[in-house]
């Protein structure tokens, strides 16, 4: 375990079925996929280990049913994991008592839900103040704080509305305000924007980034949308059938996918905005003829220059020293990868 990690999960299992513990023990603590199938058990999370670093946005991605929600619910102990360990700020989360858990949630954790999870009988203000209310803050204080939160998410003037009177996007803003009201150290978001229209989703993503710039929370964010993951995430973990297949930065994931499953996921990614020139350059150093391109430049930004040049262009590091070269063909191949080049001759220059 890295001492600096905010959260550190090791060999986490969550199994659904009649007697998960016995099942796990029967197979020496590491049942295979075929064991699950044979005995009708569901391995929602299987042997997952990872760290969440302070201040980062960690995205968990995967198809529906791959275990993302179960994983986040194991970390928050909404569902107790079957086996494994979770350290939260150096404290063993699986050992804390029910009371301590309530305290942790009241002070250190915030969570946003796909279907908002607003209390229908409470006003917007009372919804946002709810976590403060249950921890016993006096009315005046919690309402002041809730107003602050509403201002933060741009819902001023709606405080006496009821959830049903708001649009989906507005309801999720309430959900966000509520999850931030206690000033959590770590912020969980389970597909917060998946239930929204694409246009609103975009707007909410921008809003989310704006908030994060101000708040600098440690975030675990779940989505099934790779584009969203790339837009928001510092690192992305891809889940498949309960396992964490790869955990890497968006760029690493696109340039070095761990397997075909990940490659498939990344195939629709906006490569021009994720990949940098450095990650596709060859190590063959060419003398800088006129202007080179910076290794850290995104493909999209460098494309015009590279495509316009017949000769290989020099790739320069931060100090302006050449470290490699890039050609027009390399650029095209990187931006429009094709599994089978023969079938798409028109893409060949």
């Amino acid at each position, binding site marked *: 375990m890295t001492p600096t990690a905010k959260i550190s999960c090791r060999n986490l299992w969550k199994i659904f079925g009649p007697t998960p513990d016995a099942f796990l023990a029967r197979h020496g603590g590491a049942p295979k996929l075929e064991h699950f199938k044979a005995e009708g058990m569901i391995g929602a999370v299987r042997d997952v280990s990872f760290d969440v670093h302070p201040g980062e946005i960690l995205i968990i991605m995967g198809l529906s049913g791959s275990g993302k929600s179960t994983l986040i619910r194991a970390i928050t102990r909404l569902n107790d994991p079957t086996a494994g360990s979770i350290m939260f700020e150096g404290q063993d989360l699986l050992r804390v008592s029910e009371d301590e858990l309530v305290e942790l949630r*009241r002070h250190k954790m915030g969570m946003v*839900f796909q279907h908002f*999870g*607003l209390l229908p009988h409470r006003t917007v203000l009372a919804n946002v103040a709810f976590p403060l209310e*249950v921890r016993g803050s006096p009315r005046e204080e919690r309402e002041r704080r809730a107003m602050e939160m509403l201002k933060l998410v741009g819902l001023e003037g709606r405080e006496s509305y009821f959830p049903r009177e708001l649009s989906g996007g507005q309801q999720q803003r309430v959900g966000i305000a*509520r999850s931030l009201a206690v000033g959590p150290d770590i912020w969980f978001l389970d597909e917060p924007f998946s239930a929204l229209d694409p246009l609103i989703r975009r707007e909410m993503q921008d809003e989310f980034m704006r908030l994060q710039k101000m708040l600098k929370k440690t975030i675990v964010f779940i989505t099934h949308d790779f584009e969203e993951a790339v837009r928001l995430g510092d690192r992305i973990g891809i889940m498949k059938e309960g396992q964490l297949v790869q955990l890497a930065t968006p760029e690493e994931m696109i340039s070095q996918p761990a397997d075909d499953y990940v490659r498939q996921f990344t195939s629709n990614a906006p490569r021009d905005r994720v990949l940098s020139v450095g990650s596709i350059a060859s190590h063959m150093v060419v003398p800088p003829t006129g202007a080179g391109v910076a290794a850290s430049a995104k493909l999209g930004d460098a494309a015009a220059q590279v495509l316009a040049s017949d000769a290989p262009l020099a790739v320069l590091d931060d100090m302006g020293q050449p470290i490699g070269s890039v050609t027009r063909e390399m650029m095209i191949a990187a931006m429009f990868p094709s599994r089978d080049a023969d079938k798409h001759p028109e893409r060949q220059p």
Partner: protein
Amino acid sequence: MTDTTMRATADRPSVGIFGPHILVFGTFVVATVALAALFPPLDTWPEEWVLPVREWVTEFFAWLGAVAKPVTRTIAWLLAQPLAFVEAVLYRGVPDWGLKPLPWVAVVAGAVLIGHWLAGARLALFAGSCTAYLAVFGLWQDSMQTLSIVLVTVPLAAGAGLALGIWATRSARADKVLNAALDLMQATPHMAYLAPVVVLFGFGQVPAMLATLIFAVPPMARCTILGIRTVPSDVMEAGRMSGCTTRQLLWKVELPAAQQTLLLGLNQVVMQTLAMVVIASLVGASGLGQKLLYSLQQLQIGKAVEQGIAITLIAIVLDRLTRAAMHRAPQRIPDGTAWHVRHVHLVAFLAITLGAVLLAQVLPQLSVLPRNMTLSFGQPINDVVRWISRNLYAYIKPVRDTITIWLLLPIRDFYLWLPWTTFIGFLALIGWYLGGLRLALVPVCLLGFMMVAGFWTPLMLTIYLVTGCTILAIMIGVPTGIWASRHPRGAKVTLTICDTLQTFPSFIYLIPVIMLLQTSDLSNVIAMLAYATVPAVRYTYLGMILVPKATVEAATASGANARQRLWKVELPIALPEILLGINQTIMMALSMVAITALIGSRDLGQEIYKALPGAETGRGLIAGIGIAFIGITADRLIGAWARRRKKDLGLA
């Protein structure tokens, strides 16, 4: 359409469950009838083999009553206090302190304001005029007596049901136990509770309340369980992540989020309580119910109608108010609204009450409407009834007699002739075929118990009435349902009528039946029918409109005409749904059994009724349980049949 459905409908055009088993069933019937002829004990359970179960039960309750006296006294005293308070407010006043009850004008105003608060002007007008009817027709005192019992019982039943429901959602074991108990409590007719209550608590308002409680708690408990279970998981998790303790989660998240379903439960509690009004008068509850029962037994139809309408109006108003509460979303109130504006309805009520009390000093009519200012339409109704019996009875009588002679009596005689071995064995065989040994044991144990306890004849007479009622309900209800499924506009009207028929307290149907047919088996059947046809209509309608369009079109394409389509395609596919409707019909008919005893019958209901005056607890209770047993047997067999059909059709 799946090909299983096509196959099922093609292979099994008939709806019979027996199919190849018909030989087995036939042989069994012939064999048992023959055996019964040879050995009389197989035909009729001998008198001397009857176990004195009823005496045991009677003695047990007598003993319990004596032992538990301090407890029952305390309970009775506790219940009497809130009742005394509400009665003082509504109609008694506190004469010792010179306090008058609430003026009737204030109560009417209260109804108007609650209606307005919950749903606006229309409901306000409706609630107000219904309440005014009670005063104007001189039924105020009785109505307020009845209302007092309702107003005290409803919160108690709701509270108890809520607590039980919460308990069931906290523990799987509690859930199981409670479910079984609730099933039995609801299947046993209201009246059956009266006997033990009388033994333990005596006669009067409080025992009546207790008997009512037993019946009103289950729907609340069920709605609580349902409501809590169906709170969206996101909402629950948001509550937990907000740092709720288990208790905070219950009170601040689960119950408020389940509010709609809980209010539905409250609505059911109110309706159940009103359904008990007449029955409770058998143990000495005074009020409208008692007066109505008296009028019915005296054949004072005019009065009975007035009183029946009063009870119905109270029921409908309370029904509408609780429903309105259910649909009323929380209202946004702008900040800084003054207290008296926020609570304008309460302020208005207080003001009107105060005004009425003060004005009543000079105008006592505002407080209690004097008799000479009340109206009555009892006389005209009596005239109509007299006219009917003089002029129409000649036409009604042949119809009554025809149905009685050609339908009812043959069924009755057949049931009474059937050897018990044939009857119980036949049902067991069906059970065995549908669900194996477990299901076969249901009729054997339940009906067998009734026989051994010496209730065979009333048991068969009950089954006879229910059978007659069910046959008529199917003859009326299924075609109506089919018709409604073909005519969208007709469907709306039909379903509204169904709703209305079910809002009336069941004993209301006794009034017109007595009026037109006087006492007879047919009167009983028709009173049951008014209530019991509704599910047959509803479920047939539902089953028909759920038949996949593609299947019907496929049948048309293969050249089936309308009649063939109905009999060979639609009805077989809708059958499981229709079966469930018939099941409900039987339950409703059974629930009326005890009530028709009020106008004379010879079935288990009558046993319950007769057991009351002599406090024969065993007789009344076992007869009541017998009715429940018939219901449970029918429910299990028909349920299994419907499930099997659904599976065969690939609809499960």
